[in-house]
């Protein structure tokens, strides 16, 4: 397992940390956003912030699919699930996400037929096996999962399965990054780009960030050293006065993405004029709906949903966490009223959420560091 050693090696990490420190301009503070929740997970799990100089901060971005679903959409999905003859199917991540009137788990306890699936193809199989029921798949996620949903709809159409539909909540990462860049709340120096979204969309869509906003972006892998190396690459660009898109994760991410996956998305889905994101508000052209050609597979057209906008609970500060304005532990209810067992906000639900990642790992890392310093 030589690659593991290479990507985990503490000496290499230390070496990278020294080189990172050497690249920092004295007196300047650097703030980089890791867009993807998977990166947030790695950063807290491995205590990577301890390897960075004090004047380099990492802030967490909106790249957690479950976290950005607004409460009103959860309520709409539950409304569909409660109808007679409907089987709602969902990724496990989504089950505990609170809407205005409870979660999927709550609705299931109140006898709605809601089933966890690993893949949209599992949902399609349930539809084949239950021809007298309407099987709806709660489709969520960025460009990483949208192609799978699209392929499943294409498969349903090819097999002429008429009791399957999707409740489409797929979102696209670029408009969210743009919204953050345009937000006055936060001044960023660069981005650690999402690795797995980029396997689909490639690196080109990020070029406007470098060109128009003058911020570097490095597509990064998920090993601890991948992330440290990406920070190094970002600082190197800044030190050399460059702002470019670079691909640290080239061993998995092709520069042009996956054309077949992009084609599947564009056949089955179209951009919505706007969509509400939890915490970020309404963002233009930031989400996907089912294309007219596949209207028969669109749960939004088959079932009339309330479509009511539900404000987040007052105590919840997921919005600020998703924008990187607040660190998880700076939220008023973090770890007290809001825990992974009884989440108030979405960031505490998913393993990719910043609050859950910090709750599970970060606080212990901090504790270890504090204790080590004392000893």
């Amino acid at each position: 397992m030589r690659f593991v050693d290479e990507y985990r090696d503490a000496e290499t990490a230390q070496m990278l940390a020294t080189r990172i420190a050497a690249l920092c301009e004295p007196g300047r503070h650097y703030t980089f956003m890791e867009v993807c929740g998977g990166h947030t997970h790695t950063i807290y799990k491995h205590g990577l912030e301890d390897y960075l100089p004090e004047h380099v901060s990492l802030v967490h971005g909106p790249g957690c699919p479950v976290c950005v679903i607004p409460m009103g959409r959860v309520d709409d999905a539950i409304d569909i699930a409660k109808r007679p003859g409907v089987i709602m199917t969902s990724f496990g991540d989504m089950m505990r996400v609170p809407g205005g009137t409870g979660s999927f788990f709550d609705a299931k306890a109140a006898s709605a037929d809601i089933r966890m699936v690993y893949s949209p193809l599992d949902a399609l199989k349930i539809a084949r096996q239950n021809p007298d029921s309407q099987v709806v798949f709660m489709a969520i996620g960025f460009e990483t999962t949208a192609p799978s949903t699209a392929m499943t709809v294409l498969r349903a159409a090819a097999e002429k399965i008429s009791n399957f539909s999707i409740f489409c909540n797929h979102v696209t990462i670029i408009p969210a990054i743009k919204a953050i860049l345009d937000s006055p709340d936060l001044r960023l120096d660069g981005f650690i780009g999402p690795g797995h979204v980029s396997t689909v969309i490639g690196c080109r869509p990020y070029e406007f960030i470098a060109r128009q906003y003058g911020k570097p972006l490095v597509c990064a892998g998920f090993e601890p050293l991948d992330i440290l190396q990406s920070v190094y690459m970002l600082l190197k660009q800044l030190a050399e006065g460059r702002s470019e898109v670079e691909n640290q994760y080239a061993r998995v991410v092709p520069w042009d993405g996956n054309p077949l996956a992009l084609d599947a998305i564009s056949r089955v889905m179209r951009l919505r004029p706007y969509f509400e994101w939890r915490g970020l508000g309404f963002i233009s052209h930031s989400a996907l709906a089912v294309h007219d050609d596949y209207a028969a597979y669109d749960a939004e057209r088959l079932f009339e949903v309330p479509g009511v906008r539900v404000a987040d609970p007052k105590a919840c500060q997921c919005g600020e966490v998703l924008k990187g304005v607040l660190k998880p532990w700076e939220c008023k209810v973090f770890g007290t009223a809001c825990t992974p067992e009884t989440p108030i906000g979405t960031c505490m639900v998913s393993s990719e959420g910043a609050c859950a990642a910090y709750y599970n790992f970060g606080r212990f890392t901090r504790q270890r560091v504090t204790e080590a310093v004392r000893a």
Partner: protein
Amino acid sequence: MCLGIPGEIVEIDAEGTDLATVDVVGVHRKINIGLLDAGTVRAGDWVLVHVGFAMSRIDEEEAAVTLELLRGLGQAYTDELQALAGSDIS
């Protein structure tokens, strides 16, 4: 969900099904390979699996790295593996 699982292609199903059997740490499951270039996928290839679909091809060494990382993630990986084990695509 966005956490990909690396798996090794063991066998490719009949043409037109887009299905293949993968080995993920000893567990054999069906996945869909329709998002990879048709005819280029061979038994022995390593792919990154997202929600039942091979989303990109990776080499074996990369697969080993990612697996090790995921093992290190602990619960999240266990949950993802359990979810995969419960999946029954055919």
